């Protein structure tokens, strides 16, 4: 599998705090890559650097061999790099279908298209996606009044609707009921296999990440601590010491 995102030698510090120091890693196209590490080890910082929320101090970030470390958030998003937020972000005043329809891939629209109406096809796809994440019943409900977990699912459906190339998920299961987590993982895996969406996931929940990822990177104190397959990581003494703790 070829690398779709290549991070090489990226450093980022805030004032005195070195959040990322000389990080290098790759995300394989079509795979599921995991990112773990203690609190404050710089995971979210790395995500933000990739999708353009702040400038990096050194290094380079490439998407399909294109340098993106100086581009702005919307420009990067238009390349098909999509992220979800730790705190869910949906358009709360609209119902689920409207939320879905806004999420059609605008980057593929010309200005003239924007002045058109949504096609029957768009509607159908929206409903299909809602069904896929199990929100079909709630499609006309104001999305703001969905429960926390359902909002996460909706956000996930919106991301799929957007037909991203890469989906970056920041702690997708935090605060979600364990049973629901299982459903979420199932759908993520199906999105990966059925739609061919590359996934890049930050998680603290080992049950999730160990069962999903092909490859896991572990950060500590802003530095790359270890990388490898889930079983390798799980038994890596450095990871156990720095992060997992004794079992």
């Amino acid at each position, binding site marked *: 599998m070829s690398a779709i995102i290549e991070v090489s030698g990226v450093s980022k510090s805030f004032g005195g705090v070195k959040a990322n120091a000389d990080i290098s890693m790759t995300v394989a196209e079509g795979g599921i890559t995991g990112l773990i590490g203690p609190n404050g080890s710089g995971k979210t910082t790395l995500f933000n650097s990739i999708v*353009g*929320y*702040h*400038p990096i101090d050194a290094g380079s970030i490439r998407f399909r061999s294109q340098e993106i470390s100086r581009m*702005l*958030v919307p420009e990067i998003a238009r390349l098909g790099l999509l992220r979800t937020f730790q705190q869910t972000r949906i358009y709360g005043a609209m119902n689920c279908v409207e939320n879905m329809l806004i999420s059609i891939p605008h980057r593929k629209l010309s200005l003239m298209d924007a002045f058109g109406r949504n096609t029957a096809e768009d509607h159908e796809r929206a409903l299909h996606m809602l069904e896929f994440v199990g929100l079909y019943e709630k499609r006309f409900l104001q999305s703001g009044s969905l429960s926390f977990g359902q909002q996460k699912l909706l956000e996930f459906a919106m991301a799929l609707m957007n037909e991203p190339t890469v989906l970056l998920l920041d702690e997708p299961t935090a605060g979600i009921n364990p049973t629901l987590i299982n459903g979420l993982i199932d759908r993520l895996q199906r999105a990966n296999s059925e739609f061919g969406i590359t996934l890049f996931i930050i998680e603290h929940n080992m049950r999730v990440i160990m069962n999903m990822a092909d490859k896991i990177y572990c950060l500590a104190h802003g530095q790359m601590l270890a990388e490898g397959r889930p079983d390798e990581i799980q038994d890596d003494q450095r990871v156990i010491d720095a992060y997992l703790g004794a079992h």
Partner: protein
Amino acid sequence: MDQIMSNLGLLFEFPIVNLKIILDGVMIGSLFALAAYGLALVWGVMNVKNLAQGDFVIAGGYVSWFLVKTEWLQSLLGVSDNFVILLGVLVAFVVMGAIGWVCYKLIITKVIERDLFTSLLATFGLAIMMAQIMNLLFGSDTQSLKLEYDTLYFADGLIDLPIAKLIGVCMAAGLALAVVLFMKTSRMGQAIRATAQDSRAARVLGIDTEKVYAFTFSLNAAICGAAGAIIVMVWVIQPFYGITYSVRAFVIVTAAGLGNLPGVIAAGLGIGAAEQYGSHIFGIGYQQAIAVLLLLIILIYKLLRQRRLRQVLQ
């Protein structure tokens, strides 16, 4: 164009003028800063953007003016106008504090923690009402009070420093200092700072945020009132002048950035001086335009800086 060149020429021909301009700028700027300081407070703590800020200032001026004009205290205490004028600052502080409290209870409490426009428009309505009520009460003439003090002259009389203005500026500085100390050391000040950062967490710790809000708003009104009382003894007031102080206050707070109280003072003095320079060079008719253009330039600068940080200004 010729005018502008010759005005610029004056600055070099008589370098001492620069000092004079800066002095004037600092004097008026210190009062802008005071009004802006209050705005920064309510904006930061309660997220209320108070468009009636300038009208509180003017109302404070009228309180002091009225106190002197009724001659009531003079005859009661047997003191001179001069003394009553100074007392007026205190009275305006107290009276406007009370008025601010009433405004809070009637209006602001209902718009707090709502979206931006709610507070902006509610206070705009308040501003209209206040200006008009002052007009009906006191008439639309410009009013002022005069302290019977001398003027100091320097540099062949080119620089004049009315002691009255000096007193006004010192009072403004004293007031600002008192407020800063109050915020740093008193319990109420601490509660205000905590509420500003996270009101829900403050409530969890047993802080009565409603009381904090009411207090903050009336403190703001009181500061404005005192500023107005100082203004009426060195400049003039008129019922409809509020908007100029509101605009200045917003310009200053926006330029300084929220939560940056020393920055507010610096920006206030800076804008005062910049306005004086601008009106010296381009003409006094451009004074307000200069203030707002300055704001735009600052915003654009911040914007470019944010863009380099791949972020937006919000």
